[in-house]
């Protein structure tokens, strides 16, 4: 990852008038940018548009061009707010336009175009403000020059520049031809946060109306002239291949056009989804199941726990001397924790539409990684990347799943084979059984208290595979994969002797990024085991945490806020108990208090979750609240239900009947409290998820005295 400030310093701005009479300002990020894409001012201006963030029309309306993917996190609105505020254009005059694959829109924190890791606002906050402020400054300068007055006496507001001394005023639309002749300053003066009009105040999302009347276009909704619809029957065993294919009956199904063998499965290309399904049912394939035919989660779990006992692993954190401290502890505690594989289960199943032609290729898809999509399609078709046009559609959920390319591969290969546009749609069963799963993880922990009840040492060994290595096979895989140990290696608690080690174990189950990645399991483990330690020390879980965060005032304040708003220390109501947990992830910190009751049969009900978040400068507080609510539901679903089992190399779960989702009647009240801050923005899409598991299981412990060390919660373990 690239240091954000470094990127900012090296970025620069270009400007010009585009065809159609719009002022276009582009922020040129240095990483991976093809300089050829940037014409000189003398070249025809309409070629400037694909690389620009800002477009102001003659009537003063602003269009913010966005290369980040909208998957529910509100990025279209947040990024547009940042630009509009700094550019002094009123919200009703703001709209957005999404762009496909274009290196000018590379994510400054990634160095490529991608949406993930809760980076959109973090990465684009300063670059977009600079792009907007710089535009504002040339508009002001143009007005000042026109009026022969000092620019310092002019002010931009509500899409106008005004010179108060002379009472002159001009709309941006009247100024931009003169403005375009000016060189935008590379280091414009940004607004003082106290003057923000939009940033930090709740704005209505720009995409709500279209998501309330059925007009939002998701990838699955794409329709092209002459388009066929396909399904792919994949080998049920990961990594298996088709052997003998008997497609006679399938081809005879009305509406089926072609049966296309692929390396990993068989495509059924038809008139419609339903015809493809019937063709699929008639298709007979013998599979070459390959090396993973024996893979089972049971064996994986056993191997993980044995590896934890057998292997030392790689050092992820070392402070003091755990081995020396151990024998001096007054009390010691040991525990093993375990979390299962999880599917993403985006509401919109995977899909992609490709139109591969001799002269080019169009991809219509909801993807988190437009650039990689373009490169992959170029590789498969033999076309130059600039001949591959990616049209990014709304994503019906991403959560990391839409960072992958398997669904793109399907569509490109099938379109290439049948020489027609093809929309491939995964069934829910395909989606559940061929995900890139959140890895299963095993954790071995021990900790000790001194005679005064203070933690003396903390030892945490994690066993899990490397997601980075599986996603980026060419990247160096020496050392420790941060995504495997994040949330564990960076614990903030002040304990004199700490060791965190990572045993990498690959297991034959495909894996990927799942909302909050490593923190999705480490926060559960760390915050549960810390609770065990508090209990062992006979201390209140909140007070115990605070005593270990004396130097980390920020985290202590967040914990206190959540606890205070939840009424920590006061009765929670008949049969209701509280648990607390905190996690820093993606440059934000979130503490959550869960209020839980456990029935006689062991059923866990979560009544209320109080969440305190410090995510630095907030752009849209309502979006922060929504992301916390959503992140909590995502994590809660995993705590209560999430589990993917593999047997004989095949996933056992198929659909929502056996891979269950949290529903309306199980939804707790959620309260979100945001810590006011003008520090650099942190992420919000993911940080709401990590703390909820331990907040709930710590509350379950408070209610029952039973410690949950394996997810999901098994109610029969809690039956009284």
């Amino acid at each position, binding site marked *: 990852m690239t240091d954000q400030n470094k990127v900012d310093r090296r970025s620069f701005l270009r400007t010009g008038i585009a065809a159609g009479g719009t002022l276009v300002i582009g922020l040129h990020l240095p990483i991976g940018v093809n300089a050829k894409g940037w014409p000189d001012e003398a070249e025809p201006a309409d070629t400037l548009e694909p690389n620009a963030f800002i477009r102001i029309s003659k009537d003063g309306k602003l269009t913010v061009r966005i290369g980040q993917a909208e998957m529910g996190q509100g990025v279209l609105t947040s990024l547009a707010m940042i630009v509009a505020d700094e550019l002094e254009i009123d919200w009703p005059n703001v709209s957005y336009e999404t762009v496909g694959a274009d290196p000018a829109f590379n994510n400054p924190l990634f160095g490529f175009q991608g949406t993930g890791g809760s980076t959109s606002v973090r990465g684009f906050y300063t670059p977009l403000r600079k792009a907007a402020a710089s535009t504002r400054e040339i508009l002001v300068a143009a007005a000042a020059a026109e009026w022969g007055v000092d620019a310092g006496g002019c002010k931009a507001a509500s899409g106008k520049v005004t010179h108060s001394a002379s009472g002159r005023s001009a709309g941006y639309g009247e100024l931009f031809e003169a403005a375009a002749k000016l060189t935008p300053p590379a280091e414009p003066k940004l607004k003082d946060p106290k003057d923000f009009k939009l940033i930090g105040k709740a704005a209505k999302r720009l995409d709500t109306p*279209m998501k309330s*009347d059925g007009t939002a276009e998701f990838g*699955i909704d794409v329709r092209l002239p002459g388009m066929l619809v396909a399904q792919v029957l994949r080998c049920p065993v990961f990594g298996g291949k088709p052997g003998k294919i008997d497609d006679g009956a399938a081809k005879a199904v009305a509406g089926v056009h072609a049966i296309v063998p692929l390396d990993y499965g068989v495509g059924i290309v038809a008139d419609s989804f339903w015809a493809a399904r019937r063709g699929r049912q008639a298709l007979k394939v013998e599979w070459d199941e390959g090396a993973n035919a024996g893979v089972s989660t049971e064996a994986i779990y056993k191997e993980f726990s044995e590896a934890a006992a057998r292997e030392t692993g790689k050092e992820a954190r070392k402070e003091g001397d755990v081995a020396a401290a151990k024998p001096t502890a007054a009390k010691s505690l040991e525990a093993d924790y375990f979390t299962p594989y999880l599917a993403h289960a985006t509401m*919109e199943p995977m899909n992609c539409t490709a139109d591969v032609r001799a002269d080019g290729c169009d991809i219509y898809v909801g993807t988190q990684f437009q650039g990689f999509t373009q490169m992959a399609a170029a590789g498969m078709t033999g076309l130059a990347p600039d001949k591959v046009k990616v049209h990014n559609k709304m994503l019906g959920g991403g959560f990391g799943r839409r960072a992958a390319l398997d669904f793109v591969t399907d569509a490109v290969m099938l379109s290439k084979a049948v020489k027609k546009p093809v929309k491939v749609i995964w069934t*829910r069963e395909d989606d559940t059984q061929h995900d890139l799963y959140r890895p299963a993880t095993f954790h071995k922990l021990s900790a000790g208290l001194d005679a005064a009840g203070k933690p003396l040492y903390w030892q945490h060994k994690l066993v899990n595979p490397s997601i980075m290595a599986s996603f980026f096979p060419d990247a160096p895989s020496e050392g420790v994969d941060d995504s495997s140990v994040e949330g564990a290696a960076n614990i903030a608690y002040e304990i004199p002797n700490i060791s965190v080690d990572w045993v990498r174990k690959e297991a034959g189950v495909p894996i990927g990024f799942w909302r909050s990645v490593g923190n999705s399991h480490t926060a559960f483990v760390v915050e549960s085991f810390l609770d065990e330690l508090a209990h062992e020390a006979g201390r209140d879980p909140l007070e115990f945490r605070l005593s270990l965060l004396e130097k980390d005032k920020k985290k202590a304040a967040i914990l206190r806020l959540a606890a205070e708003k939840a009424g920590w220390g006061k009765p929670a109501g008949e049969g209701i108990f509280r648990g607390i947990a905190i996690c820093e992830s993606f440059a934000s910190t979130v503490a959550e208090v869960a209020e839980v009751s456990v029935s006689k049969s062991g059923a866990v009900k979560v009544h209320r979750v109080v969440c305190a978040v410090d995510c630095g400068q907030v752009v849209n507080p309502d979006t922060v609240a929504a992301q916390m*609510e*959503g992140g909590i539901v995502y994590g809660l679903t995993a705590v209560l239900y999430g589990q993917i089992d593999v047997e004989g190399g095949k996933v056992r779960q198929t659909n929502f009947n056996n891979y269950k989702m949290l529903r*309306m009647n199980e*939804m707790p009240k959620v309260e979100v409290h945001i810590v006011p801050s003008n520090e650099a923005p942190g992420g919000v899409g993911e940080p709401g998820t990590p703390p909820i598991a331990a907040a709930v299981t710590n509350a379950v412990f408070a209610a029952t005295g039973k410690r949950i060390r394996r997810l999901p919660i098994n109610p029969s373990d809690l039956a009284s």
Partner: protein
Amino acid sequence: MAKLTVNNKEYEVSSDPSTPLLWVLRDELGLTGTKYGCGIAQCGSCTVHMDGKPVRSCITFLRSASGKKITTIEGLAGDQPHPLQKAWVEKDVPQCGYCQSGQIMAAAALLEKGKKPSDAEIDSAMSGIVCRCGTYNRIREAIKLAAMGGEGGE
């Protein structure tokens, strides 16, 4: 050819009578507002109204929909957005938005009964509709807002 009435418009459709209504709407009529989520009546993304009642179009076959009055999300609004659609905007309910057609159609059927639904009634009408993004609390608030608006003569 089967006859199908969708959003007060008559269609002659050529899909096989055993095709689920969902895919007739989406693939043949191009009404893509109704979504596919599971295909087995588990998620409610595909909810439409058949003679005013909410049904899951993924398990409602063309042959049984033919001759009935079908309303989809595209046909919910009159000249003005439906009160629920206004409430959805007011509460900024959607995140990814994929489930929301189903949510709104289920909620619209609930409000058709013409009363202010209790929390329990909302739970029973809405728990069949999964929202992976977790917008449930806002859905609940928006339904209540729309129900109040209805009473206020909106």
